[in-house]
């Protein structure tokens, strides 16, 4: 098991190297630099700025410098927010106000929304297979999978904030401001999880051991909760990890739509501002998150299903 964990964790290295190389190369290819203005800066000031941020060095040297700083958890200075580092932009202000913290809060609540709605919906659908309840649940989950989150967010704002006036339109902080963005971000996951739970539940309740459990006189509730659910949820765990990362990365649209001061907001502005280090910082952050999630899922999967370890050695 330990060997498996170590081997999976080592996988982090080539992935992050690759991500950093691709991101760095892309940023170097971008037309226009962080100091390109409509009114050009005097050449001397420009040269000074470039020297300050080591932009006058050859690209490979800049890359190595970036990598070296990265190893020290230093994401470098922001080109846009003068005098601030990326670390400051992303983590400044501390819990719970910092940009990364806000994004994490939103993401976590959305995960709970997704699990809390998706799993029960999937179970009900499976138990009532081919009834109108099942069809209704599956129709809604198909809808949830299909609506892009920024569109859903705008629809929800229109209905609940503009028309009904029940909830605030935007920003982050008070409990009432949390409701719409978390539902927006969680819906897609809830829908996917509902579909998956249903499919794997249907598969499980046809197994012999479920029949045995019923035959020995267990109540239906105990059969479902005690025997079926545990095994039915294994495939669900595998998708939750990567999905979580996907929601986190997708959350920049939700943050954009609801004007939430998270990393996502910085990601969008950094793209238009050509703030190289901030773009790289956000992408690296998301990539690390994604890879770590995948590794955690693999490990938890190996715990849940001993057969996996057998194959992977």
């Amino acid at each position, binding site marked *: 098991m330990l060997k498996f964990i170590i081997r999976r964790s080592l*996988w982090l290295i*080539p*992935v992050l190297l*690759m*991500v950093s190389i*691709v*991101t760095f190369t*892309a940023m170097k*290819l*971008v*037309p226009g630099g962080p100091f390109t203005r409509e009114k050009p800066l005097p050449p001397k000031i420009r040269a000074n700025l470039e020297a300050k941020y080591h932009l006058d060095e050859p690209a490979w040297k800049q890359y190595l410098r970036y990598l070296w700083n990265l190893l020290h958890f230093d994401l470098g200075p922001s080109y846009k927010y003068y005098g601030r580092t990326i670390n400051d932009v992303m983590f400044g202000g501390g819990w719970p106000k910092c940009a990364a913290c806000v994004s994490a809060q939103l993401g976590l609540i959305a995960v709970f929304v997704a699990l809390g709605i998706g799993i029960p919906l999937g179970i009900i659908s499976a138990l009532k297979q081919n009834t109108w309840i099942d069809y209704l649940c599956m129709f809604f989950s*198909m*809808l949830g*999978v*299909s*609506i*892009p989150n*920024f*569109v859903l967010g*705008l*629809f929800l*704002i*229109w209905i609940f904030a*503009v028309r009904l006036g029940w909830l605030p339109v935007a920003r982050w902080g008070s409990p009432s401001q949390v409701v719409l963005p978390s539902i927006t971000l969680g819906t897609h996951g809830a829908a996917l999880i509902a579909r998956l739970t249903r*499919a794997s539940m*249907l*598969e499980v309740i*046809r197994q*012999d051991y479920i029949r045995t459990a019923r035959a020995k006189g267990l109540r239906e509730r105990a059969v479902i909760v005690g025997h079926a659910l545990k095994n039915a949820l294994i495939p669900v765990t595998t998708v939750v990890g990567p999905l979580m*990362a*996907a929601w986190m*990365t*997708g959350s920049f*649209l939700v943050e*954009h*739509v609801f004007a939430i001061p998270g990393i996502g907001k910085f*990601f*969008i502005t950094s*793209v*238009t501002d*050509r703030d190289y280090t901030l*773009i790289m910082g*956000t*992408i690296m952050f*998301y*990539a690390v998150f*994604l*890879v770590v999630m*995948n590794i955690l899922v693999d490990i938890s999967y190996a715990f849940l299903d001993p057969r996996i370890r057998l194959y992977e050695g």
Partner: protein
Amino acid sequence: MAVRERAVSRALELELRRPSVSLWRDAWNRLAKNKMAMLGLAFVILVALAAVLAPWVAPYHYKDTDFKNARKPPSREHIMGTDKLGRDVFSRIIWGAQVSVTVAVVGSLTALVIGLTYGSISGYFGGRIDNYMMRFVDVMYAFPTLLFIILIMVVLGPGLINVFIGIGAVGWMRMARLVRGQFLSLKEKEFVEAARMVGVKPIGIIARHLLPNSLGPIIVALTLGVPGLILTESVLSFIGLGVPPPFPSWGQMISEGWRGMKATPHLTIFPGLAISLFMLAFNFLGDGLRDALDPMMRGVS
């Protein structure tokens, strides 16, 4: 297991009693019975027709401005209202379908061509080549897809061609994995062994034996991949990296309209509905195709 065995033997019995039909005919019959999938297919065809015939079916041109009637809610002349320049929203949605449909077609084709080539080389030859090729895909897979496309778009600048490049750079990986998996399992089968024995060249084996037998899963994956493509384009256009104005795309229309949602909600709601319904239709169609082409999955998923 006994239940399943009985079901299988019953299915075989029914199978023997049926007149023989080809695999595709059979799949089509199954698909035709799936109401939601057929509804999806109908909607997809409708949107595709609207896109192709846009110059003739749209009541107005997408550029036609009418400043006196700007920001008007839906009315008889403009069934979905007008935007800030007085352009007809309904007509712009029809023209915008061209973008979504093109993205769906071109994106799928790119994914197919690159993914198929990559996956078949990897899957057919196996061994060390396969190992290296798949490790590369694994590494690329760890990249946050949408951010990667955005990164590419930042480098290349907005524009439909660049959207294709961005989507193409990412979309092939899933297909490559799928094709490789299919080929790996198929090439051990006796009929492939037999073909190899009588001296069929690798390209022949791939084209005549492996590919036709993988067609079902490939079609399903392509269909289910389309909503992702449409989503990507709309996201890019929404954040201003996609199709540049004045040519409309659904995402771009939302991006122009959403800040005025209080006064002019129709500018957001109609394009939003267009994206959602188109994706919904493809999802239903893809789901139906999967059930139709993969009889083993029937009743389970």
